[in-house]
């Protein structure tokens, strides 16, 4: 776990802040400013990530958006990603400890897990809550202790309040349970399981309601959450993120210019071995069989939905990693008894080396490269030059000085990079008054902005994301900016 955490925390500024992180930071910035969090059912995910991050950044001394640092935000999913390694151990002894240890190779060092564990978005928290819910439910089924069913319910509530894709996870879990019932016989339910289920449901509903209601500060939140299902269906149709059913497969196993896809290949190989073992022993070992069915159901659902982004694959890869751990141990077990430990350790070492090589390249050396299959619409490193340029040009300007105008709609993640700029404002069109000192325009608006500004302004081109450009307009009399012109 320590190594997994270190991998996620190392060099957090390597990757430019992604648009989704910038949008999330803007929401957190509002919360730091004292505005109550209000769930937006149309265009946003749930509140758990913000509530999980808020106390941490406050403890770091942040009081406004401008105080935030990327490393502070990214430390949160890093902890969640490392905690996932512990959460899977809730499945013990349904899944052997050796298999869970082997699974930790992928969960801890696999490139997708590390990459999105360094990325302040909802997915890592979502996957962690998924495993807490499954693990706690499994423990309840084994022990009958109500604390576990309540824990499972709370985790499901958190899941629902994290992302709308909770519906898919819950559907896949139900499909998994039904499959176990059909293929492996009746479930061994503890006595009084109806009460336990009711408690779990109540805990889930209470947790979700409290979170959506911002703990009482936004009472319309739960109703908005219910309405979000309608929008979630519309979003599932694609909304610009439409991909063919095979997109995840391509991201996972197609060799790229930056790395061989070791995580996808090894998960496929050892996951298949684990799946075979889970199927063969489905009557005796139901937890692995449930995980197999759960993984397959999630894979089918996510492939069937046109909306696809690479971080969504974590939902399938995490349970697949447990199956792969099982497969690795099973394959090692094929050797004669005196060689088993050695063979298993050798396989684990080989997997660790392969995963490490891919992770080093995709997460550290080329994290924002267009050739990186994990980098989805990555922010261009060029944005840092724009940030530095604006900082130089506005150096010495006070809070009452004239403004930096950002014009256009496609300007994310500029609000993050210009968060410390005095008097920055965002407009759909160039404002007439107050007259701006500097103007950053989306490329689509640049021609109109140039006409409105008049002659003498010098435009400079910068990249925001792949094929998304912005133009910085510098005024004709740079001396007015404190003589800050120049590199």
């Amino acid at each position: 776990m320590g190594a997994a955490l270190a991998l996620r925390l190392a060099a957090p500024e390597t990757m430019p802040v992604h648009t989704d992180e910038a949008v999330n930071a803007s929401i957190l910035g509002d919360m730091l400013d004292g505005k109550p969090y209000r769930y937006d059912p149309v265009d946003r995910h749930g509140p758990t990530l913000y509530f999980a991050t808020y106390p941490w950044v406050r403890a770091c001394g942040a009081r406004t958006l401008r105080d935030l640092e990327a490393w502070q935000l990214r430390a949160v999913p890093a902890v969640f990603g490392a905690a996932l390694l512990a959460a899977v151990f809730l499945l013990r002894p349904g899944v052997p400890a050796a298999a869970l240890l082997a699974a930790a190779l992928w969960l801890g060092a696999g490139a997708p897990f590390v990459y999105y564990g360094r990325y302040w978005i909802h997915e890592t928290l979502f996957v962690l809550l998924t495993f807490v819910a499954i693990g706690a439910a499994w423990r309840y089924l084994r022990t009958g202790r109500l604390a576990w069913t309540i824990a499972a319910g709370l985790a499901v509530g958190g899941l629902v309040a994290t992302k709308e894709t909770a519906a898919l996870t819950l559907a896949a879990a139900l499909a998994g349970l039904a499959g176990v019932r059909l293929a492996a016989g009746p479930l061994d339910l503890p006595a009084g399981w109806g009460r336990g289920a009711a408690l779990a449901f109540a805990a889930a509903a209470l947790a979700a309601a409290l979170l959506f209601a911002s703990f009482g500060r936004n009472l319309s939140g739960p109703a908005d959450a219910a309405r979000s299902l309608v929008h979630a269906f519309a979003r599932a149709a694609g909304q610009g993120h439409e991909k063919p059913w095979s997109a995840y497969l391509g991201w996972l196993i197609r060799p790229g210019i930056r790395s061989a896809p070791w995580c996808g290949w090894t998960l496929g190989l050892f996951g298949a071995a684990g799946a075979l073992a889970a199927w063969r022993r489905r009557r005796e070992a139901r937890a692995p069989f449930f995980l197999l069915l759960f993984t397959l159901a999630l894979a089918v659902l996510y492939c069937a939905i046109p909306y696809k982004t690479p971080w969504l694959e974590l939902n399938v890869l995490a349970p697949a990693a447990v199956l792969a751990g099982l497969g690795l141990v099973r394959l090692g077990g094929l050797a004669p008894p005196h060689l088993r430990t050695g063979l298993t350790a050798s396989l684990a070492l080989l997997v660790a080396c392969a995963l490490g090589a891919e992770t080093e390249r995709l997460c550290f050396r080329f994290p924002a490269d267009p050739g990186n299959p994990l980098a989805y619409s990555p922010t261009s490193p060029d944005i840092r030059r724009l940030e530095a340029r604006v900082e130089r040009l506005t150096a010495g300007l006070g809070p009452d000085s004239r403004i930096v105008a950002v014009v256009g709609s496609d300007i994310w993640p500029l609000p993050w990079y210009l968060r410390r700029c005095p008097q920055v404002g965002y407009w759909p069109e160039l404002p007439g008054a107050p007259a701006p000192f500097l103007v950053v325009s989306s490329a689509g608006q640049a021609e109109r902005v140039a006409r409105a500004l008049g002659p003498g302004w010098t435009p400079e081109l910068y990249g925001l994301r792949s094929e998304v450009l912005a133009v910085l307009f510098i005024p004709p009399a740079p001396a007015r900016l404190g003589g800050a012109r120049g590199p």
Partner: protein
Amino acid sequence: MTHPYAPPTKARHHLFLAAAAGLALGLLAPASAEDLVPLKLELPKPMFVGTPVPVRLPNLETPRVGRRPDFMVPKGVVNLALNKKVTSSDMEPVLGDLSLITDGEKDGDEGNYVELGKGKQWVQIDLEKPAKLYAIVVWHFHSQARAYKAVAVQVSNDPNFVDGVKTLFNSDDQNVLGFGVGKDPTYIETYEGRIIDAQGDTARYVRLYSDGNTTSDMNHYIEVEVYGLP
């Protein structure tokens, strides 16, 4: 009023000389025009359609609609850079190798370009002997709309580019390369490549600089062609 047969005054004498010179130039001009021909380039297939960034600004090159105007060069110019040796500030490229820059292959597909490391980098082509140069054409990367930063092109007979260096193109608007603030426009890469006027200068070495691009910190070259008289 001056008599028509009066001896020429000084002004008339100048007028006569000007007319004679004009006549001589007029006779010579057609001959020069005949020697100039449009530069014929073999273009790779386009990798993206249209221009996603319709920016029309003073020091950013306006994306052109329609065919590129002919670039006139003397008859007989050839690509002197073909298969010539390339050196670089990054002799161990991240992707590909330096020979790709002069191998004549201009497709933007993976495997056809060399990727140099982050930040300021240059590549240098040794034409093996000095030659009169008329056009340098560069394809950095054209499978995606992007602009390269601080693009500069220099020629020299000094392999170290210390003496007799002439800068033919400079879009380095913040002088990160140290050659002075560039006045040439930043441009978005396309499959047509960028034609740079070599102005008939005589040089053996051609050096091209860049400082990353709008998408990544890396520097790329698919092909560089240097047209001159052999």
